[in-house]
């Protein structure tokens, strides 16, 4: 028996109504004979029969219902002897032909795409939102109301994607970073400046912030940088006693012939020696950036300067290794004075390649400093004290400084640090060469 189904009569035809039959059960039909008329929303079309045979049964009567293509319409008994052609298996209506998906019925209550998108943006779960629209449909207003508390809580900072990434990497709190970019946009430079210049904020609009605001912001900046340093940088510590007898004797002799304005402090000696020692161990001088050490040709010595109202800054003396002692003293004095009156330049704040702290001032004998990211080492000098030393086996009392080095184990190890301290010691024994 041959199933006669509603044929597809066009690329965009899915359904049609059966208008009328042109044959009745018992009629014989021939190939190509028009046996029915159907109507789509575009036109009335004749339907051909492809087989020779006798109409057995008209399964469906003409009517208004819109029948999907493939619906069984009639059955035709092939004539005896007529060799029934292997008509291809006509897929049952439900089993959709590849490429012909049956359209899903619209589900009520599911919010429209734009509303779903808004909900997604505001982190609102539409399932838990009561729709106030027609038939319970969820509207944009519903989503906004549901998101109210959400919006209130998180004050979104206007920062560039790169700034956001850097803030994530360095732990800088975007909320407190002053914005210098386009229309109040926090840019990478702002984040770097914030994170770099710990402890003191750079380019702080000094005039505008009152002292309290300044030190409070600085305190927080120092806290964050030190926390970041401790968390990120695997420190190792080395210490060494350095006999300063020859150095200080030479310095006093020098100062005796110099007016007060030309006087040189021991700190200048220590800085110059440090700078020259770094030439022998360059991998202590540079920055840790993007998971890699980037050595610096120039030696920009960060000098830790304590501020009278508390807090500490470590601006850089540029190219310290190339300065004469007088130049070193002059730039040290200039740096200290400007630091203590908040007039530092951002370049000084943002690019020291290593920092030196304490410089033999009052306070503890031995300092164990914390490296300032992204630097990879820090040198500490304790208080200069008179201590018994052995000179050619004979006891003597010499002024001695306890020099310490904290290094970043990702870049160097104890051996390299030791070489540096030895070089420092050797250089300080020939002050006239500094």
């Amino acid at each position, binding site marked *: 028996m041959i199933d006669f189904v509603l044929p597809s009569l066009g690329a965009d035809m899915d359904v049609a109504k059966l208008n009328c039959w042109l044959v009745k059960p018992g009629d014989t039909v021939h190939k190509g004979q028009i046996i029915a008329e159907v109507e789509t929303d575009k036109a009335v079309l004749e339907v051909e029969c492809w087989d020779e045979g006798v109409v057995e049964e008209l399964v469906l009567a003409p009517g208004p219902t819109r029948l999907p293509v493939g619906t069984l319409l009639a059955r035709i008994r092939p004539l005896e002897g007529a060799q029934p052609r292997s008509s291809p298996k006509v897929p049952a209506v439900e089993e959709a032909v590849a490429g012909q998906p049956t359209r899903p019925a619209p589900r009520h209550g599911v919010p429209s795409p734009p509303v779903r998108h808004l909900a997604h943006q505001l982190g609102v779960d539409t399932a838990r939102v009561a729709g106030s629209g027609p038939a319970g449909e969820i509207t944009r207003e519903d989503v906004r109301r549901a998101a109210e508390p959400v919006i209130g809580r998180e004050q979104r900072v206007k920062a560039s994607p790169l700034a956001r990434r850097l803030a994530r990497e360095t732990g800088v709190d975007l909320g407190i970073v002053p914005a210098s970019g386009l229309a109040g946009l926090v840019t990478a430079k702002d984040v770097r400046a914030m994170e770099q210049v710990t402890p003191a904020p750079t380019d702080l609009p000094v005039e505008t912030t009152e002292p309290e605001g300044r030190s409070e912001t600085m305190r927080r900046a120092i806290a964050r940088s030190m926390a970041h340093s401790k968390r990120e940088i695997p420190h190792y510590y080395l210490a060494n006693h350095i006999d300063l007898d020859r150095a200080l004797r030479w310095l*006093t002799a020098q100062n005796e012939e110099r007016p*007060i304005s030309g006087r040189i402090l021991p700190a200048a000696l220590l800085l110059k020696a440090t700078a020259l020692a770094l030439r022998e161990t360059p991998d202590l001088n540079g920055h840790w950036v993007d998971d890699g050490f980037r050595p610096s040709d120039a030696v920009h010595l960060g000098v830790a300067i304590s501020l*009278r109202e508390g807090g500490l800054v470590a601006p850089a003396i540029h190219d310290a290794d190339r300065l004469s002692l007088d130049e070193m003293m002059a730039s040290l*004095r200039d740096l200290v004075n400007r630091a203590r009156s908040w007039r530092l330049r951002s370049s000084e704040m943002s690019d020291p390649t290593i920092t030196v702290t304490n410089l033999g001032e*009052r306070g503890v004998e031995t300092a164990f400093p914390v490296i300032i990211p992204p630097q990879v080492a820090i040198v500490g000098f304790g208080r200069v004290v008179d201590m018994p030393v052995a000179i050619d086996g004979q006891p003597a009392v010499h002024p001695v400084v306890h020099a310490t080095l904290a290094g970043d184990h990702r870049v160097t190890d104890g051996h390299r640090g030791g070489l540096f301290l030895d070089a420092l010691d050797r250089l300080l024994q020939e002050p006239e060469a500094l």
Partner: protein
Amino acid sequence: MNKEEARQTIFEVLGEIAPEVDPATVDDSSDLTEQLDLDSMDYLNWMLGINQATGVEIPQRDVSRFLTIDGAVEYLVIHSG
């Protein structure tokens, strides 16, 4: 320059370096660097300030005379002549 003028100059210069210091509370005879937490740079700047204000030269060997206010005043009176 008499004692009073010397003392006034000394505290003027000191005020630039340690503005929060109240002259009345300073003990004239004890070590200034201890009392006022002056580091070697502050101390040097103080003497330089005095030198610039009074023209009195302070050679290296006399630096220790400036550890106290009294010492400083005395030195200034003698050397400002």
